[in-house]
């Protein structure tokens, strides 16, 4: 309480220079509450710290007396500040001439790309009057094909995250960019004489050609400088490729050609930079229709349940050592590795192996085996060999030069840096793009200790994090939606990133930071990116073959892919400033990618010795529990920890939110006497952590799974959520630790799962009962391809459906549009992109862990997860459940104030203004899709979050019911546009947010009155069924039953997997 005088300038604790600098760099409608806040004084940050996410605005916390007084005094301080801050003198004027294309109320879409671990996903960002509100996939982009993953959908929330770092910090105090540039350049000048000895650069994976050229320039200027890489979730694919082929090649899959696919633990359909594309390609091979009864076949061998495993035709749970043995046995069975020594203890696995090997051998060149890139390199080497032996190389899997620039083993690279830091050999360390090794470095590498010995440590990132606290400089980064830049997709295709908004807090891109250190302090990333491409694009917007003959390999390993040049070419006829270049550049920006930059296939010859060595490495199964680490499905390696959408997004299989947990199979938990939510200690050779137990059906026995990314110490709202796995991870045990010891610590830690989670008595019995009941009630209808071939109508005939005239009321005609939706359960992987897309599109609030625990999550679209068959070895099903828009809607008749009514197009409309909140509609909804604002969940107090909201969708107040609207705002927009243009809405022209985001096109929406729409055709399919249709609700959302294509040779092995529909 030291700022209550209201006299500006009288506060010794406030650095007014810093305040001015902050005010200067602030953009947009951002307000402050006190000088302390502006100066980011620690005391104020502490006051701002809240247990619950800011976006969730946990209302019940209330305002303490102290907090109230602080706010009151801060207001006084603000009053004083206005008095002596000069108002801007510039004249502001409205548009005199309307800018082209900018129509108030109509969004614009810009093609750009968003990256995770450096690899880009081409997206279209929706901009409302200059503020990005929603991300869609770029249909022209090979990694997207119009869909996205969860991270891209959530990117807009990170952009507007009020916890983003908002200023340059010098030793934790606000400073200026200019101050940084002069100090850093001074330090560099001192190093120049030494050839840059002591200068180190640490980044994540870099694919950006512009950035790569800059780094290369820097390394040329300072020959003794070193470039290190740290990527906590990089996997072992690099090491495996080096071993198998002698050089780091990347494998790219073509699922469209694969009839039989085997995954050895890989979650390739839901994880990784190519997942969106792979999911689409793979599921295209299994859309069974009346006239197309063909399916590919997927065998999943995995240690823990994944979205990929959940749509597999056969799923085998093996503990990690057993999985390795299986891989070796498979390699031997298909002739990829010599000998037949591998034995499988489990007779079921043995039978499986024979069936899989036979199936693979029957489909040479049309099969594909995918290894888990987090699994051991030996298995990956064997899988490379298997694909070679099956003739898949060059067909279903192609090898290319790596997409990343100068790929290295990140653990080794970081280890070298840590050694040098601790030896005092590092003078200046520049960490770019939010790399956070203090949190994520392997436990045996004392990064933080080393960092203290670095004279000038510079951290550049979106957030102040664990690492920035140790650094002399923290540079606030620009978000990708605020930046110019470029990035490659998983297949090498280059996209140019363009900003949708000027940096909110004056952040800088990595490109600008490097330019500032290369004597270009004022260069903008726009100039730099444009400058880079000015010599590489020809008039057609293609790569200029004369200046870029397809890539030049240099000694440094930079650039072997098209579009990468080691030396900037002198401006030519196509160079910057010419009309031809302008046109080409615009075209590239418009389409969102540089054509012909896909990495071309190269021939890859596997080294026989490597295969033999790999086979020899696979040892007999060690006893004890193997602990696996994996990137979290929603917050990845921790970099998305502060994103509330991703935190509250239920993990695809466990449905956990806001936490990770130590996952164990039911049997293993029973053996170890560990209960659901019980705190346990994990002891890996003396390194210990504590974590809460989650019992997860589908996990192999003797396997524990712990996701990365939680237990952050400095991540704003996510600080303290979950359990930090990094202290167990050493450089040798990045992804698995055999023989860990688990013991109960007693005590419980509540875990917030959105589905079937007992509030009163922790236990997983409810999960089991719910799955059994779902099976009995045929919530998920499923069958096999053979059943379908014998009788295509078997799904519909299995259950009675009420006749359409079974009502006392006259049939309501829908003469105009009749909106409906079809969801194909056969291709839904449960990846959850649709859930975040819905949240972003419809301003769905975040409620926080406490409210999730009380069963009050607000997602309009949820993905229900059920298990069928043996609970110890279940088949996993996903079912997206939006509002069914019932024609006989039970919710409508019980609302006393007519706040939920039916539209003449069949929409079940929710009138927020009219709702008084009796919740009767929710009680009477058999699908429980209605969501109630029990408290004031929408954050209306944080100014920057107002920018995030979709202006076409009402922000709901407390006390009103809400639910899926079929994106009625999009329907209305389409209708208006059609009316303006005087034509009907073209078929399939209109997509809901969930449909647009879906990588597998499982969700199809449209006008069921019009036979030209895809949805109408799908609803005529024999697999079509309505959820709980026996209630005669006549839902407009219907499902296509899930078909599997089991191998007859494995019939009877999976008891209980298929019953009920025969």
């Amino acid at each position, binding site marked *: 309480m030291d700022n209550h005088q209201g006299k500006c300038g009288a506060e010794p604790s406030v650095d007014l220079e810093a305040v001015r600098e902050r005010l200067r760099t602030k953009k947009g409608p951002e307000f402050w509450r006190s000088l302390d806040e502006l100066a980011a004084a620690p005391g104020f940050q502490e006051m701002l710290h809240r247990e619950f996410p800011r976006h969730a605005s946990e209302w019940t916390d209330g305002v303490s007396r102290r907090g109230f007084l602080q706010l009151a005094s801060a207001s006084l301080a603000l009053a004083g500040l206005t008095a002596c801050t000069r108002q801007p003198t510039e004249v502001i004027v409205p548009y005199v001439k309307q800018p082209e294309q900018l129509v108030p109320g109509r969004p614009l879409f810009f093609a750009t790309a968003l990256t995770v671990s450096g690899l880009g996903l081409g997206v279209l960002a929706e901009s409302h009057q200059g503020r990005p509100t929603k991300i869609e996939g770029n249909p022209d982009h090979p990694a997207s094909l119009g869909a996205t993953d969860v991270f891209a959908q959530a990117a807009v929330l990170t952009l507007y995250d009020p916890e983003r770092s908002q200023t340059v910090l010098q030793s934790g105090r606000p400073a200026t960019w200019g101050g940084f540039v002069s100090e850093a350049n001074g330090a560099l000048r001192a190093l120049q004489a030494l050839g840059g000895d002591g200068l180190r650069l640490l980044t994540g994976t870099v694919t950006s050609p512009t950035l790569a050229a800059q780094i290369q320039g820097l390394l040329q200027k300072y020959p003794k400088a070193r470039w290190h890489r740290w990527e906590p979730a990089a996997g072992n694919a690099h090491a495996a490729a080096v071993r198998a082929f002698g050089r780091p090649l990347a494998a790219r899959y073509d699922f469209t050609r694969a009839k039989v696919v085997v995954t050895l633990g890989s979650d390739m359909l839901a994880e990784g930079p190519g997942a969106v594309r792979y999911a689409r390609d793979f599921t295209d091979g299994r859309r069974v229709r009346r006239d197309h009864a063909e399916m590919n076949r997927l065998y999943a061998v995995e240690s823990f349940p994944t979205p990929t495993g959940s749509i597999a035709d056969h799923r085998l749970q093996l503990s990690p050592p057993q999985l390795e043995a299986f891989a070796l046995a498979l390699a031997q069975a298909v002739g990829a590795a010599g000998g037949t020594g591998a034995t499988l203890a489990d007779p079921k696995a043995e039978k499986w192996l024979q069936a899989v090997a036979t199936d693979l051998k029957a489909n040479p060149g049309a099969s594909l085996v995918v290894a888990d890139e987090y699994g051991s390199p030996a298995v990956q080497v064997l899988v490379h060999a298997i694909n070679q032996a099956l003739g898949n190389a060059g067909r279903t899997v192609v090898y290319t030069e790596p997409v990343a620039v100068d790929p290295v083993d990140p653990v080794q690279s970081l280890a070298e840096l840590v050694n040098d830091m601790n030896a005092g050999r590092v003078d200046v360390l520049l960490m770019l793009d939010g790399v956070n090794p203090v949190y994520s470095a392997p436990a045996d590498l004392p990064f933080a200790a080393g960092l203290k010995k670095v004279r000038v440590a510079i951290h550049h990132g979106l957030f102040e994090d664990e690492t920035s606290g140790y650094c002399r400089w923290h540079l606030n980064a620009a978000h990708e939606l605020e930046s110019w830049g470029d990035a490659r997709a998983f297949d090498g295709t280059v996209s140019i990133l363009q900003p949708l908004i000027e940096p909110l807090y004056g952040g800088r891109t990595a490109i600008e930071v490097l330019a500032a250190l290369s004597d270009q302090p004022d260069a903008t990333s726009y100039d730099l990116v444009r400058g880079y491409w000015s010599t590489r694009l020809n008039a057609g917007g293609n790569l200029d073959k004369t200046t870029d003959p397809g890539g030049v390999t240099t000694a440094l390993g930079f650039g072997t892919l098209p579009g990468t040049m080691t030396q900037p070419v002198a401006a030519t006829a196509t160079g910057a400033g010419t009309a031809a270049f302008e046109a080409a550049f615009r075209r590239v920006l418009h389409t969102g990618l540089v054509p012909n930059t896909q990495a071309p296939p190269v021939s890859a010859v596997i080294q026989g010795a490597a295969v033999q060595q790999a086979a020899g490495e696979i040892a007999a199964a060690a006893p004890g529990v193997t602990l696996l680490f994996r990137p979290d499905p929603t917050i990845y390696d921790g970099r998305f920890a502060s994103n509330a959408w991703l935190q509250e997004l239920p993990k695809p299989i466990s449905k956990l939110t806001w936490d990770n947990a130590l996952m164990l199979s039911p049997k293993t938990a029973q053996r170890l006497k560990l209960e659901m939510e019980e705190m346990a200690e994990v002891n890996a050779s003396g390194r210990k952590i504590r974590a809460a137990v989650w019992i997860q059906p589908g996990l192999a026995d003797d396997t524990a799974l712990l996701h990365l990314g939680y237990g952050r110490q400095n991540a704003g709202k996510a600080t303290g959520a979950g359990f930090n796995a990094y202290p167990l991870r050493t450089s040798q045990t990045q992804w698995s630790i055999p023989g860990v010891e688990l013991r109960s610590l007693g005590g419980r830690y509540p875990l917030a799962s959105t589905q079937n989670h007992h509030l009163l008595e922790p236990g997983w019995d409810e999960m089991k009962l719910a799955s059994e009941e779902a099976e009995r009630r045929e919530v998920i209808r499923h069958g096999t391809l053979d059943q379908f071939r014998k009788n295509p109508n078997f799904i519909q005939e299995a259950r009675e459906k009420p006749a359409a005239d079974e009502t006392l009321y006259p049939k309501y005609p829908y003469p105009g549009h009749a909106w409906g939706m079809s969801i194909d359960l056969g291709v839904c992987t449960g990846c959850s992109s649709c859930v975040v897309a819905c949240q972003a599109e419809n301003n769905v609030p975040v409620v926080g862990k406490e409210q999730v625990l009380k*069963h*009050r999550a607000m997602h309009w679209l949820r993905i229900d997860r059920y298990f069928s068959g043996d609970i110890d070895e279940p088949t996993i099903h996903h079912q997206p459940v939006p509002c069914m828009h019932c024609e006989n809607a039970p919710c409508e008749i019980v609302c*006393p104030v007519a706040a939920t009514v039916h539209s003449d197009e069949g929409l079940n409309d929710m009138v927020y203004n009219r709702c*008084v909140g*009796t*919740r009767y509609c929710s*009680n009477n909804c058999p699908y429980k899709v209605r969501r109630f604002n029990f408290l004031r969940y929408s954050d209306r107090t944080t100014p920057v979050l107002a920018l995030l909201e979709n202006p076409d969708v009402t922000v709901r107040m*407390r006390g009103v019911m809400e639910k899926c609207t079929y994106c009625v705002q999009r329907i209305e927009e389409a209708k208006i546009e059609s009316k303006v243009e005087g034509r009907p809405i073209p078929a399939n022209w209109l997509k809901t947010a969930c449909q647009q985001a879906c990588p597998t096109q499982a969700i199809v929406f449209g006008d069921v009155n019009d036979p030209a729409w895809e949805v109408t055709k799908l609803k005529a399919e024999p697999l079509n069924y309505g959820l709980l249709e026996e209630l005669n609700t006549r839902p407009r959302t219907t499902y296509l039953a899930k078909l599997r294509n089991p191998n007859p040779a494995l019939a009877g092995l999976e008891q209980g997997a298929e019953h009920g529909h025969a």
Partner: protein
Amino acid sequence: MATLEDERAKPYRPPIVAPGYTTATVTDKISEVVLQRTPRWWYLGFGISFLIMMMFLTAVTWLFAKGVGIWGVNQPVGWGFAIVNFVWWIGIGHAGTLISAILLLLRQEWRTSINRFAEAMTLFAVACAGMFPVLHLGRPWLAYWLFPYPNTMGLWPQFRSPLIWDVFAVSTYATVSALFWYVGLIPDLATLRDRSKKRIAQIIYGFGAMGWRGSAAHWHNYETAYLLLAGLATPLVVSVHTVVSFDFAIGIVPGWHATIFPPYFVAGAIYAGFAMVLTLTIPLRAAFGLQDFITLRHLQNMGKVMLATGLIVVYGYAMEFFFAWYSGHHVEQFTFWNRVTGPYKYYWFSLLLCNLLAPQALWLRKVRTSPARLFIVAMFVNAGMWIERFVIVVTSLHRDFLPSSWGMYRGTMWDWMTFIGTLGLFLSLLFLFIRFLPMISIFEMRTIVPGTRGGEYTEVPR
């Protein structure tokens, strides 16, 4: 006079009023309760009740400030304590009208000793009940939208919704009960006006008495009005809880969607109402020494009504289970199986203890004629009926059609404060009532003391 043998041959029927009273002593005795100096214990009792009511106001203030999220309601259990309490209070409110109207029409003269009191209790219970539908709204300040009033939005309520029927049923019931109670009070208010010594009391009671002078014309009009109101109130006894039961029966939720609900709810309401009348009467007659007016015969009769309605309620339980089985609908069957074996099974077993086992004691005259034992049984029934509503509301909702959406419900501190707080409101009103108004109808009692028409009438063997 009947002989001693005749008396012994008849079943034991205690008199309505103990012998030895005249019209004058009856009037003295009842009006004295009001006109005497306020006893100390009254201040204590009222003070405690008032404090509990303040707790209610605190809980409601916090509720309005924060929203219904402070309660335990959630997805899928959208209705919790508020609706349980609403149905419970409304049920309690049934005894008054039943005693006043139906027993009047059936010429059950013994009702005279307890009808005033039961009517007051009805009013207060309906007042408690009536608050909950408003409090449980997400936006309670818009509760008036449930009424059909002309408005610039051009909107009516949605008449297909049972909640609208509820609005009419409960508001009608409250109005008629209040009128009935007030009309019945007029002659007694005149008595108090005439007997009170203080000027202020004379004026206030005088206003209430509306110029009652006891003329034959007054009595004629009065009797007609009272009879008409009784006729009007009689269907309400059945209709209110029938409509309340529609809130559930109209829904498609398994465990709610049952045709047995209306009669089963009405019986339950009478059952609960009589239990509450007993709960209040037994201590009060001891406190004010009214054993001569509210005799063991009254208590016995109420015990019998409780036993009869309790058996109907239990029959309702049995039929619910039977029809769940008979429906052949798996979800329906699961719901009832879940009631007995699921996470709320203890509620179910408590329900059986309170509503099935405890009232069986009423078969014994020993229990029926012992105020203390009757009181204990009545307390069981009070609790049992609350649990019954909890079981119906919560266990049906918490596991319905889609297993993915199953959840659990638990009342929070605020839920309990609101519920217990309404008990405080109820008791506060009751304490005010017994202090300022005659809790037994004086003029009606005069008609049944021995020697009067009514008094002799009761002596006629049935």
